[in-house]
């Protein structure tokens, strides 16, 4: 219907964006009726997302035609931005930005490096950036989920953790059930994506490959390759972030610093 009313691409795009935003805000209003306030976060996220993607879209052609070495700079910037975004899900956790950035760099960065070296990801910037961004974005989501789950589990079990510490437990052991739970929970989206590949989810990348002339079977197999890389990058990110965040939850004197109302690390 919109295509008939707005034949111009720019007008059509803006109108489509407004339609999508209206649906999203309808959901936000429904949530508000249940006393769940997502208004400001949803508005900021949508505003930021639109501005960022339009800005990148405007220069994407130039970026994709740039020299190959610029790919590593672009991927590094993406990892930093992913670390900053993900860290916001870990309020109260000391050094959340450092933990997130390091975890995403280890998880997504190492999978991108190895797979590019093996030739699984093409070194052409037009292939490396889209596939790399997928791995980084999924690693960011996984990291955010892991940190958020760890934080909420620890805050809900302060009594159990401090009881273990008071009995002489190693801090690592005192939070091990919550580290495990956050690791498992953070990987649910990546595992479910793999599990539902081709049935629930047909990635856009596959359609693009088919349109650009790839053989359907190869295009299909490559979707599996991408999702498996996503799982590997997400898994490694979550493993690293849960290891790092576990250390951040305690002071040097083995006191639980991640407690409601206590943010200061007062240990010497």
């Amino acid at each position, binding site marked *: 219907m919109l295509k008939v009313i707005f034949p111009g691409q720019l007008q059509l795009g803006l109108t489509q964006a407004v339609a999508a935003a209206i649906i999203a805000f309808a959901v936000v209003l429904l949530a508000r009726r249940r006393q769940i306030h997502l208004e400001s976060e949803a508005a900021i996220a949508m505003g930021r997302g639109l501005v960022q993607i339009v800005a990148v879209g405007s220069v994407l052609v130039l970026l994709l035609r740039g020299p190959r070495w610029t790919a590593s700079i672009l991927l590094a910037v993406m990892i930093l931005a992913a670390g900053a975004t993900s860290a916001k899900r870990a309020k109260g956790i000391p050094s959340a930005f450092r933990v997130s950035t390091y975890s995403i760099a280890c998880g997504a960065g190492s999978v991108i490096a190895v797979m590019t070296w093996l030739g699984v990801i093409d070194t052409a910037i037009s292939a490396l950036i889209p596939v790399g961004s997928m791995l980084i974005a999924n690693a960011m989501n996984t990291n955010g989920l892991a940190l958020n789950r760890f934080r909420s589990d620890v805050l809900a079990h302060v*009594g*159990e953790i401090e009881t273990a510490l008071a*009995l*002489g437990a*190693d801090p690592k052991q005192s939070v091990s059930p919550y580290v495990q739970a956050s690791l498992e929970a953070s990987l649910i989206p990546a595992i479910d994506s793999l599990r539902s590949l081709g049935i629930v989810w047909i990635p856009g990348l596959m359609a693009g490959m088919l349109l650009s002339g790839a053989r359907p079977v190869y295009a299909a197999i490559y979707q599996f390759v991408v999702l498996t890389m996503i799982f590997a990058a997400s898994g490694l990110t979550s493993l690293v972030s849960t290891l790092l965040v576990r250390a951040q939850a305690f002071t040097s004197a083995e006191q639980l610093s991640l407690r409601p109302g206590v943010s200061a690390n007062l240990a010497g």
Partner: protein
Amino acid sequence: MDFLGVPEPQSPNILVADHLSRSVNGVTLVNDITVQVRAGEVLAVVGPSGSGKSSFLRLLNRLDEPTSGTVFLEGIDYRQLPPRELRRKVGMVTQRAFMFPGSVAQNLSFGPRQRGETLSDARAEKLLTRVGLPGYGPREAVNLSGGEAQRVSLARALANSPVILLLDEPTSALDDEAKSGVESLIRDIIHQSFLTCVVITHDVSQATRMANRVMLLESGRATRVGSVEEVLHA
């Protein structure tokens, strides 16, 4: 110790809080407390809600870090002790008993297991008998009543053979029946074992029944320290 359970004046100090203070975000929770606890003595810490009783107790096993001052355990500055060794020696029973998943016996062996030791079935049963729960070893710990869980919590702390036991309002979360049972059990264990204790309570009559000495806390500061008569019945 004499027959009334009062430690001899020459008993050595097991624990000394030396100008202990703690502030968080500019709020002073514990303010320059100095107090000694002699071997075999039971020190009750009393005071109104929010006076810093629990904050003080958490400093004694270094669950929280003092902003200034320190604690000497058996003459050693506790900052020189590895935290896990310190907490093994300074046992703690909290207001609410948090049970770990698994059996009661597994809960009892938690502390010794941290040091690579095993708690024999005989010793576990002896501890359970001591807290009035013989035969409870195989039971699921999370299914216990509040009073039973508090008894297991006490046995679990004792399984570490602490040199001093910290009790943070150990009966305040229990119903009246369980409360009197747990209190008399703690009193018996303390006096039979010559155990040194610091007990937090807001109940003056409980402090009178349990303690040799009392420290009154007000706004984080120790305003009176002395015998039960001197502090509570003056």
